[in-house]
């Protein structure tokens, strides 16, 4: 019988997604430990968002399983999703509700105890106090991203999925987001799965990276040493090679 490490917050096993005419993800397997930020990288169409969708239970895998904190997403969806949360550029919060209302509603959806107190904590933690009564639609991109991140932390998740969380942010706002995420993972409360196309950011924030290409994990390792292993100067060069000629790396 498989015994899961108690610090493993996300375990993905043999995840496969076939559509009628194509295979989007094939046999993807990896884990994320508490206190760890793992980068899920790859060119457009590599299968990143498909993988994240399956982890979030909004897409049914053809094969394989996802365990969040040891709980199977498919067989115990509510319990598993109660221990996760996410933020993505394509998932906005209602623009016509205030920051406070949005955070409060999501605290209720995630079954957070003492929801009002938790919202006050989040407003303090993410320096959103002065925006509490402002509709989300009136905030700048950077402020909205902070609200999304606050929402994503509302239930103190064991695994946090961040799909390009700093896309469209200026460098200063992006740095604040990275620092918040790093500070949270340093507490060991949970782990992060982070996707980004900004390789400099990935080197800064991720402990480990997984390169997806054509639905499979092609490479895995430390973002600081992985490029040299494959004779590349930096992560960006490695990324470009994977995007253009993944077969050359598969052969290595």
């Amino acid at each position, binding site marked *: 019988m498989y015994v899961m490490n108690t610090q493993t917050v996300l375990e993905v096993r043999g995840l496969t997604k076939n559509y009628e005419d194509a295979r989007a993800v094939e046999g993807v397997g990896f884990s994320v430990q508490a206190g760890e930020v793992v980068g899920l990288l790859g060119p457009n169409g590599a299968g990143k968002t498909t993988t994240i969708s399956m982890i979030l239970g909004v897409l049914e895998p053809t094969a394989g399983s996802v365990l969040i904190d040891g709980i199977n997403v498919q067989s115990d969806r509510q319990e598993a999703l109660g221990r996760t949360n996410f933020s993505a550029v394509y998932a906005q919060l209602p623009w*016509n509700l205030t920051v406070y209302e949005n955070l409060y509603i999501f605290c209720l959806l995630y*079954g957070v105890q003492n929801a009002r107190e938790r919202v006050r904590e989040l407003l303090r933690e993410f320096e959103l106090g002065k925006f509490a009564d402002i509709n989300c639609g009136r905030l700048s991109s950077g402020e909205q991203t902070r609200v999304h991140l606050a929402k994503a932390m509302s239930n103190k998740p064991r695994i946090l999925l961040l799909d390009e969380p700093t896309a469209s942010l200026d460098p200063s706002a992006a740095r604040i987001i990275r620092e918040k995420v790093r500070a949270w993972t340093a507490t060991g409360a949970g782990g992060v799965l982070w996707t980004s196309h900004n390789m400099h950011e990935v080197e800064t924030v991720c402990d480990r990276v997984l390169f997806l290409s054509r639905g499979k994990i092609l490479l895995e390792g430390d973002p600081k040493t992985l490029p040299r292993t494959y004779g590349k100067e930096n992560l960006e060069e490695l990324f470009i090679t994977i995007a253009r000629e993944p077969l050359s790396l598969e052969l290595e």
Partner: protein
Amino acid sequence: MRRNPARLAGFLWVVLDIFLWGFITKFLNTLGVSGLDFIALFLGGIILWNFMIRVQQGIMTAFFEDVWSRNFLNIFASPIAIGEYLAGLVVAGVVMVLVSLILMLSIAVGFFGFSLFRIGMPLIPFFLVLFLFGMTLGIFVIALILRWGPSAEWIGWPLPFLLYPFSGVFYPVSVLPLPARLISRLLPTSYVFEGMREVLASGVFSFSALAPGLALACLFLGLAYIFFNRTYRMIVRTGMLARFGAEG
């Protein structure tokens, strides 16, 4: 309304509808040809009909607010159960319905001297049947939109009007040609409006005459829920839910 001007438009439409039918019926009453109280018959019909439409549209609007704001994935990736989500939409819809109903009743009494409460206790089962059928239409339309994407919105708004001629809102079902009469017998709404006319004409309410309408409303609600569940499972399997959330 401050949060969504679309809701305000819905209420304005209700006000316009009641005024329009109020003036038409007032005119018909002045003709005095039949001895019928057109105000009671027509305004009673339009208030009950609008009640059902507002239930459906209230549920739809609550759903669309998540779609329009691209909040869809946030909801479906949370631990909320599908039944809880639907219940939330119904509760949000009920608020819209209550505001509409108060508006309609106030205008009917204030401007045309017609109180729906003249119908008395039978109003409760009438409202119940219409509420259940409005929920059915709302859930059915949401399932269609999930299946076909946000562009299928156009199906939702006119759907009740396809049932309008068969529901006997303003005339007895018996005036319909036979094939249309058969369709109307399958609609819970036709039993409500037949019952309303009976109560207004004779003061007699027959629950046994309404019972098939209530049974049909329950049956259709159950079928709509099953259809919604199957559609949801299908879009999770095919990836349409993930795409819908991203594209909404």
